[in-house]
């Protein structure tokens, strides 16, 4: 059964890394629903968050293939329940449409949106939330005349406590331990 997964990965910030990763997904005909690249908490390490829809077996396989890429440090795969995630959207709406009812109050109070800019022609509204919440607000604004709509990819943090630094440390320790094992057997 196909379901939604969030692939979070940490990599070196080298040119071409994104191509290498998307190639792996393309080969398996997995569509990327959203992708976000940003700096991570570890200096010099970039974080990519991708949302894909596929089977649990397939996501496991591609995650291993992605982790194999030389410049990739670590890959995590999560289902929606294992992460806290947000998306952000901007709505550019006609001022006339938006001012006509009691919409403004609703938008701010019920939908926790913000007004970024007001001009005689248009008003820009900003909202963060889940994909569903963002769509809900879009549907609400539609009758007022939406001039532009844009939403970001998903950003997510995990519920687990162990952080990337701990994995990096473990890798270093494993390397040391392996050296000792080798010396023992040789």
């Amino acid at each position, binding site marked *: 059964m196909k379901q939604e997964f969030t692939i979070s990965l940490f990599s070196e910030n080298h040119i071409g890394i994104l191509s290498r990763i998307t190639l792996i997904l393309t080969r398996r005909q997995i569509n990327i629903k959203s992708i976000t690249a940003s700096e991570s908490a570890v200096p010099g390490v970039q974080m990519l968050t991708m949302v894909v829809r596929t089977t649990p077996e397939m996501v496991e*396989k591609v995650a291993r293939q992605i982790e*194999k890429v*030389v*410049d*990739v*440090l670590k890959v995590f795969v999560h289902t929606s329940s294992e992460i806290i995630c947000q998306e952000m959207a901007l709505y550019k709406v006609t001022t006339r449409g938006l001012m006509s009812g009691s919409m403004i109050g609703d938008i701010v109070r019920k939908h926790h949106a913000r007004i970024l800019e007001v001009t005689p022609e248009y008003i820009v509204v900003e909202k963060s939330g889940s994909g569903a919440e963002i769509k809900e607000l879009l549907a609400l604004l539609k009758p007022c005349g939406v001039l532009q709509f844009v939403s970001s990819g998903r950003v997510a943090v995990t519920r687990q406590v162990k952080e990337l630094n701990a994995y990096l440390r473990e890798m270093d320790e494993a*390397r040391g331990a*392996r050296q000792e*094992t*080798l010396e023992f057997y040789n």
Partner: protein
Amino acid sequence: MPGANGSEASATKAAAAEVTGAEALLKSLVEEGVDTIFGYPGGAIMPVYDKLLDYSDSLRHILTRHEQGAAHAAQGYAMVTGKPGVCFATSGPGATNLVTGIANAYLDSVPVVFITAQVTSRLIGTDAFQETDILGISMPVTKWNAQVKNAAEIPDTVARAFYIARTGRPGPVLVDISKDAQLESMTFRYRKCTFIRSYNPVNHLISRDIESAAVMINHAERPMILAGHGVIISGAVEELKTLAEKGGIPVAVTLLGIPAFSHDHRLFAGMLGMHGNYAPNVLTNRADLIIAAGMRFDDRVTGNLKKYAPQARVIHIEIDMAEIDKNVRADLGINGDVREVLTAMLPQIRERKREEWIREFRILDRTEHEKVIKPETEPEKGDLKMGEVVKAVSEIAGSNAVVVTDVGQHQMAVARYYRFTDSNTLVTSGGMGTMGFGLPAVLGAATGSTGRQVIAFIGDGGFQMTLQELGTIMQYRIPVKIVILNNNFLGMVRQWQEMFFNSRYASTEMVNPDFVTLASAYGITARKITSREDLKPVAAEMLGSEGPFILVAEVSRTANILPMVEPGASVSEVTLTYNSKS
């Protein structure tokens, strides 16, 4: 910048000296112990070739007749020496001509460092003359690649390339160097790369896994080892033998794992897969434990996955984590170097004989011998058979001879009928199945193995895909022995047409040149044989000759390679006979 995050400084050598980027590249290769380069010059790489003249004492350059040839030759060299092969090509078409060779090395896990030249950096991205995005093109078929636009980055990038190519699961890497970087001056200092933060080539063993594996092996009644290329790459041939002997476990091999276990050993079970041996295919589905070592359960090995090894638990020992559970789900996946894993495991393996189980192999072996092997290798009448030619050469050649093949029916004949007893003796194109691989690969293999007999078996189709490399063999007097198994057909495709396409031979029949005359144009001794009586004397003449030699064997036009696991069938449904309809 490469090296900025991790390349630990070690063995700082060579006092600072001002050199050009081109010279820095050559110095870096010397630092990595390179002695041979296969390549082809062109506009953008001219600064490198110019400096190469000054390094002819330490770096031997073999000029092939096509960049694809250089790529395959570098792979052949790498496979016999165990060192990364090195290949040069210029920008644009030079670089794109490498792609088949890069992909071939990638699928067969062979370390080759490809150096391509790129147009001057300010022109990159402008569709300049002979500019191509080789970084983008080679991305899916390289383990790693990088572009260098400053001379100062050349040594660290080359160091990184070699480290990545040869460690972990080996593979091809590509470094693209712009022409201005080749000409720019820099201060040369070389630091070997020993560590990259984001790259963990070999996983640390978990002792609990080793113990579990030993328990599973000790308790199995019908265990079987499947040995792949990884056994040879990791140098685990001795450990594999000890494991087999101690546990009384039959060893089956994949195509690239063929020389991992001596064919003379009583526990040798034969080759797996589509045209493999009868017993290991049938008994895969009888086994209660599969110990897969350094192999990746390719579809040519497993046949129909739904009906694969239904009674067996699977232990998968593999250095590449992405291969574990990829095709066959492992009950116990051990992510590590085969030699390290087997070494750790051996003390815990109980001595067992398992004679009953081994007898099952012998019984099926006898059936296969009767129905397939004997008629193929010891026919008394009719046309020459590929099998008998391979067997005749195998019996005369020394056990340490290097055998190279191309792709197709003759390749399967070699895999089945050549008796391999030493490791590092087979160079073939496995995963990619690249026709045209054989001739350039054999010249590369011969360049890397002085004092050993180097023999290639090539079909008439594959030979003509890269036959221009006869020029390279001529120019450098490379003493290769080439057996052309000529059936005037693209034999394997013809076989499939006969079996699955109603004998409709669409574009598989070949009108060939006279290969003996062709060889003479290159000054290479050649003999054609058509009869059984000539086979052994001419094979002996070939192997006794000094220089290059071509033996053209005119074999049966329409013989089929059997047994066969037909597409979609289970390995246990392997068929021994096929009644020709035509």
